[in-house]
């Protein structure tokens, strides 16, 4: 198990390989479909983003509301491919890490390689467990989007696995090949 501090450093990203289990500590931003759409509209209009995306990590999540006494409600990953159309533009601006679940498009994988970034997976449906590693949450932008607003999470030992590393190695392909019986 590897422990890493967020925001990620270039040397951390270079050393990570698909299949590595990692515990993340530090801060990250949340965004899913609607927030991505707005972010990329700002980029296209040449306007500044509501937070500095350089070196940051985005977690694809729309958390459940926080019950009293909890920093957040259940907060597991959503399926990442819905963000694929927007992701290369954000990587261009310096986004370094993404956390989600599921496959990415070839364009996203190319952009991950080009900009030396990393795509992590969190366990889909382990949302109550994951919420235990989120210590605080504040809305940074788009409160009108409700669960889809952009939040800044402080996380401690957030459990993830490297799905696509900066060389383009893909754990989904590697794992499937290893266990397929043909």
């Amino acid at each position, binding site marked *: 198990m590897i422990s890493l501090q967020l925001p990620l450093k270039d040397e951390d990203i270079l050393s990570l390989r698909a299949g590595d*289990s990692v515990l993340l500590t530090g801060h990250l931003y949340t965004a899913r479909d609607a927030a991505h759409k707005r972010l990329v509209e700002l980029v296209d209009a040449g306007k500044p983003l509501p937070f500095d995306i350089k070196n940051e990590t985005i977690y694809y999540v729309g*958390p*459940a509301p926080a019950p009293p006494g909890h920093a957040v409600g259940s907060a597991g990953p959503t399926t990442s491919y819905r963000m694929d159309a927007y992701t290369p533009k954000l990587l261009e601006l310096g986004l370094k890490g993404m956390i989600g679940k599921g496959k990415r498009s070839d364009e996203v994988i190319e952009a991950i390689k080009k900009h030396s970034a990393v795509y992590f997976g969190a366990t889909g449906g382990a*949302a109550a467990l994951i919420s235990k590693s989120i210590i605080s949450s504040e809305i940074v932008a788009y409160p009108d989007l409700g669960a889809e607003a952009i939040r800044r999470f402080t996380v401690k030992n957030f459990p993830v696995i490297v799905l696509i590393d900066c060389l383009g190695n893909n754990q989904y392909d590697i794992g499937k090949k290893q*266990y397929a019986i043909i």
Partner: protein
Amino acid sequence: MRIVQAETIQKEITRLFLDAGVNIEKDVDTCLKNAANNEPSPVGRNVLEQIIRNNEIAKEEKLPICQDTGMAVVFAEIGQDVHIQGGSLENAINKGVRKAYDEGYFRKSIVAEPLFNRKNTGDNTPAVIHVNIVEGDKIKLLAIAKGFGSENMSAIKMLVPADGVEGVKKFVLETVDKAGPNPCPPIIVGIGIGGSFEKAAIMAKKCTAKPLNYSNPDPNYAKLEDELLESINKRGIGPGGLGGRTTALKVHIEYAPTHIAGLPVAINICCHASRHKSCII
């Protein structure tokens, strides 16, 4: 004739969804634990262990099993000797859903209109409601909270009779392969075969809520369920899609009479967070 108050239906719907959202079905839990013991892939095992622990935390702390607390789907079997008083069935169900998603701190994930402005309704209504009128004076309610990570990986195809069993197998395996990690494996595969276009889809949805130890009573279909499960688990997709031998927990098939020219097949995929509860009023 028996009179049932709309309020009774509403209260039962609230209870069912509150229960489904945080308490995993016992058979799913047992199945996950067996899978964790038999999974040869270390990363796969780790995913299964996280899911099992997640479900314990959800139950202990009354937190939703998954942040996607789903779209509310309700199957209502209404005895024809029942008269519902004090409001409509539809209103009672939607009020029940609204209250559950509010009280349970569940996520509200429904948009009022799908294409142009996609504005959230703010209370997770309306539910998708399937009503069947049956004999008797009871009401049977089945509440399903359906996550869309797996719903989006579902598929329907109008096969032709000549495609036969092999055609069905090919379509199921293609669909599961294409879905890969996206629907949060291990999955439950519901398959509706026959009927018409929409009948196949409704049967498939119903299959996702059947007990995991249930098999189709027709031995041909039971055998097909087992063969499909085995083939799916040979694909290597594994828990979380990270590689392994537990890709599906169960394949359920329901069939219906169909047209001489047709072989509709609908596949509804459900994630391990299979949340459904039922009751009889």
